[in-house]
């Protein structure tokens, strides 16, 4: 969903974006990607865009964008994660552990 935050994208572009953001740690194939999109569309968090195709674009592609509900759910989830991260920071969970003197 984060990959759709700054505008609509087609499936392959979403996979590339996720690949780039996670520095190659998450590489989605067509099956996992469209399976996820199917679930997101069914939950009305994402919708296919009906904008006309760009010239020179592969006509088989479909573009997807966040719905208002999706954008709100994304914001809620990121807020929740931000809270978790800030709690973790306050408790120094993210600090590099130093060897303790005996």
């Amino acid at each position, binding site marked *: 969903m984060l990959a759709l935050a700054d505008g609509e994208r087609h*499936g392959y572009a979403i*996979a590339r974006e996720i690949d780039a953001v996670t520095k190659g740690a998450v590489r989605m194939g*067509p*099956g*996992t990607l*469209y*399976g996820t999109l*199917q679930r997101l569309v069914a939950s009305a968090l994402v919708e296919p865009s009906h904008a006309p195709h760009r010239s020179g674009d592969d006509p*088989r592609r479909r573009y997807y964008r966040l719905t208002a509900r999706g954008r709100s759910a994304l914001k809620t989830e990121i807020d929740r994660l931000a809270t978790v991260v800030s709690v973790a920071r306050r408790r120094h969970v993210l600090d590099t552990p130093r060897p303790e003197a005996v």
Partner: protein
Amino acid sequence: MSARRSAAQASHAARAIARMYPASLRGAHGDEIASFVDDLRGDARYGPGIVGRVRLLVHLARDLIAVRVPATGRTRLPLGEPPRRERRLETLAHDARLALRGMANRPAFTCVAVITLMLGIGANTAIFSVVSAVLLRPLPFPHAERLAVLWATNSTNRQLLASIDGVNDWRARARTFDDIGIVRTQSVNLTGAGTPDRLVGSFVTANSLTLLGAHPALGRLFVPPETEKGTGQAVAIVSYGAWRTRFGADRRILGRTLVLNGRPHVVVGVTDSAFTDPFGADVWLPITSAPNQNWFQRGTASVWAVGRVRDGVSMDRAQRDLSAVAAQLAREYPATNAGSGALVIRLRDWLVGTVRPTLLIVLAFVGVVLLIACANVANLQLARATRRRREMSLRAALGAGRSRLVRQLLTENLVLSALGGAAGVSFTVAQRTHEVGIRMALGARRSDVTRMVLVQGGRVVLVSLAFGLVGALGAGRLIRNQLFGVSAADPVSLLGVTLGLGLVALAACYLPARRAARVDPMVALRAE
């Protein structure tokens, strides 16, 4: 194979994988998936060389497994309480899923192990099927162990042609044989029926065909007067194979006249599909149709014979009997038979001949190759087992018993072996498409071919089971020092899992078997 061709095949395989996604996904996103795969093929990481293409295949295969083999909710570690009977199948399915996902996550290990097993199993299946057909399976003739091929000998040579009169004398005087029939194969020219052709002709007496157990599919076999000097008739019998391939399986062939060696012969029968002539004849003619009438002079060595030894008589005794008859004939006809003896060779020994030791050596050789393959895979597994101590000790800490862990490792090994086995059998089937085509052209039904491949696959499954069981118990011992005070192996569940997975592995062989059965004989034979 050129790199370009390999890359093209990998692209083809990529599209094939894309077609294996669930129908629900293909229905809603088919075009998009195709476009996605095309984009991936254009991606610098996945092309254009063979390495890139293989990387693409691995990526798609992992994706396919992730979609087809869904994770069971949260990662559930198998716990230690002995699973109840009704949960065993669920546990088995869980283990198999775990094994598949584990293999998808380690594509290099999986590829190496599967290819190693594939080559070992493929070579063994191919050679073993030859050995089994040639050395182990009984010959397809009635009383095959009593059938012998009879030859003349002289002081320097074994296995010489005999004269027709000589064989008739053997038949009349030898007491250890039920019957002896004359055989001589020679190519014959077929003219007057479309394109002229050369067929393998066999000049015989009527009893030769009955000795070999031939039955007619159409018409009849020869009757004795038709093949005897003086009463011989210009008749012919066509083999089932030649009838299908050369005469288009035309049922009106009976009564038709074939011009063989320039002489018209009336077809009186077609042998049935189960009959295989050990001498490879396409068409049988009476010995009286011999291309050269000199054959009938006592001094002319022109034929050999096939005989059936009486029940309870050994080949050695039959040999002594026939030698005595030959010595008697040498005294009676010194001008033509002096120094001439007789040789009795069991039909199987004559057919297999010098191939037996060679085949056994090749079998031993590929057996060693399979052992090496198994040892390699076992090494790979052991290397992984040391890396997986942490995972295993965590499971043991959560209460998994030794039998539970062994069962999981057994499942992993069996899934791997089943994949290797299926790949090996597929490899063999691909190599034997031509043979399957011939079998089907000769009348083998699809169910026969499927059964043939399944029986061969079954042997592979047995080897896999033994290998999987030994591997799992070995790995279980290796990690035993990680397990504190846990239950001993449960023989009932181990046996149950072994049987269940054996069936699964056998089912894996069903795919190549079905593929073999779908071979179109016309296509397979045309490829030659």
